[in-house]
């Protein structure tokens, strides 16, 4: 150990310390609710706040459901589009003006999420509520379209907004690995006389792991997104198959309820256990994504 290493050690330890302390804080604060309810906090959909400690009962299944539902909508919309855009930017755009397409995408990937939120509330939700009316009037017998909610605050709005937010990120991951494909392969593929479609299909199979990793990391982003989602999802304890139903996500539940949680005995603990669930999902998804990227030499 040289002196310099010892000098740098505290800062590295602090980074580790923060994460470990975080995990510790979330676990310790969740203990109270686990003692009271056990694992049922994650498997029931009841939210009963009460001044009397014995009558309190919390279950966050609706929030877990909403998180997975909205993130899945976001991924389903975003993935095909971000692959398409990645190929468009790398193959169809001349190298000289490529940056003019990449810069706006980068700007949007870093844009403060509250700007997506304000756009979602005042522009996306009103226009989506029109679409909701249209589908509900014609297809209400299909469960997916069955919930009538003229306000437009719904899983669908949250999912679409999330899709818009994660696409710039997903597309730059895919684009970078697509551009990194060695030229030999490109030349080989085109020398076979394949059309652009056939060639691209083969080249895409080469970066399949990067696409899977991009999907996981984008999913992780969608799961963790808070303010924009909490503004458009409607915030209701609801487990409904319809795209048009309002709901909750774990992060919007925390953002919405934590402010008044300390008025109750058990609610802070319940929300920390929700945080613990989010922590675990975030950790697993991001870790899996990074492992895939590392294993295939993209990061």
């Amino acid at each position: 150990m040289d002196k310099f290493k010892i000098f740098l050690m505290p800062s590295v330890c602090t980074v580790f310390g923060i994460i470990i302390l975080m995990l510790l804080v979330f676990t310790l604060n969740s203990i109270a609710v686990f003692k009271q309810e056990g694992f049922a906090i994650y498997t029931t959909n009841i939210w009963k706040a009460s001044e009397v400690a014995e009558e309190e009962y919390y279950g966050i299944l609706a929030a877990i459901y909403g998180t997975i539902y909205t993130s899945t909508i976001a991924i389903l919309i975003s993935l095909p589009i971000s692959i398409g855009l990645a190929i468009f930017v790398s193959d169809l755009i001349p190298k000289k003006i490529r940056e003019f397409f990449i810069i706006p995408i980068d700007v949007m990937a870093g844009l403060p999420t509250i700007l997506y939120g304000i756009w979602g509330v005042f522009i996306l939700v009103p226009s989506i509520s029109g679409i909701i009316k249209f589908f509900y009037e014609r297809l209400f017998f299909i469960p997916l379209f069955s919930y009538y909610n003229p306000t437009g605050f719904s899983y669908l709005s949250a999912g679409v907004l999330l899709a818009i937010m994660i696409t710039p990120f997903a597309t730059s991951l895919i684009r970078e690995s697509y551009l990194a494909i060695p030229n030999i392969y490109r030349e080989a593929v085109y020398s076979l006389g394949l059309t652009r479609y056939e060639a691209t299909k083969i080249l895409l199979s080469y970066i399949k792991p990067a696409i899977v990793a991009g999907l996981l990391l984008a999913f992780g982003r969608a799961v963790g997104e808070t303010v924009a989602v909490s503004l458009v999802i409607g915030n209701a304890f609801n487990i409904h198959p319809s795209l048009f139903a309002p709901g909750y996500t774990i992060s919007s539940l925390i953002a919405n309820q934590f402010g008044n949680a300390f008025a109750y005995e058990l609610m802070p603990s319940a929300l920390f256990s929700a945080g613990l669930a989010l922590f675990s999902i975030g950790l697993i998804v991001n870790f899996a994504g990074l492992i895939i990227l590392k294993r295939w030499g993209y990061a």
Partner: protein
Amino acid sequence: MLRELKNRIFICYLLISAILVIFPLLHILFSVFINGVPVVMKYGIDFLTGTLPAPNKPDGGIFPAIYGTFLMVFIASLIGIPLAVLAGVFVAEYPNNTISKATRSLLLIMMEFPTILVGLFVMAIFVVPTGSFSALAGSFALAIVMLPYVATYTEQAMRSVPRQFKEGAYALGLRKCRVVFSITLKIAKKGVVTGLLIGMAKVAGETAPLIFTAGNAWRSTGSVFEPNGAIPLWIYYLIQQPYANYHEIAWGAAFVLMVFFLAIFLPIRFSMVRS
């Protein structure tokens, strides 16, 4: 024939997906601009120097929010940057060490971590014991969010410094500490500064870590130990109010935030193109 047709359809798909991405993104920037500029014009310079008006009363401004954002980003940088740069130096200087490999993965994970959890964490360890929301608590949360960006950029910048410079410095008999701080970091300065600015631009727009840490202030500017507002936080709360003039102010604040963000981000991004 069929091959040709498939190819045509494929190219249409590429074009459509490009439009589907670019259109909403430009629409967001455009909406913030078109809704924000008239508000700022209408309120005049008062918009930047005034405080929040009463519901449905004219005039007023967002000064407490601007003050809070600058204060918290400044303190967060004071806390976060030294820590992050040192951690980045460690990872770059000892790349084969187990700890530094683990640190690198950890930093990448932290970058993607839900920021609301950071806010909750700081609330539990800082706000609850001290008994009050404060700008300092908000700065702690922002420092944690900023850390992985600065550290990762520092590491990458340091690794891109050619070996010859370091070897030359060592050949002169300099100690490792001197080599890193007076040679490598100086050559890597541009990359490190890019990281700092991107980290600052990122946290200036963060809302979630501040909800439970910074508190909020509508009409006053406090010290670091008192609750303070922030632009993103204001927008978040104002949207949820039923008053038309609060919605107006939210759009104006969104425009101001967008200008701040673009003013930091665009020059960095364009300088990356040139190099």
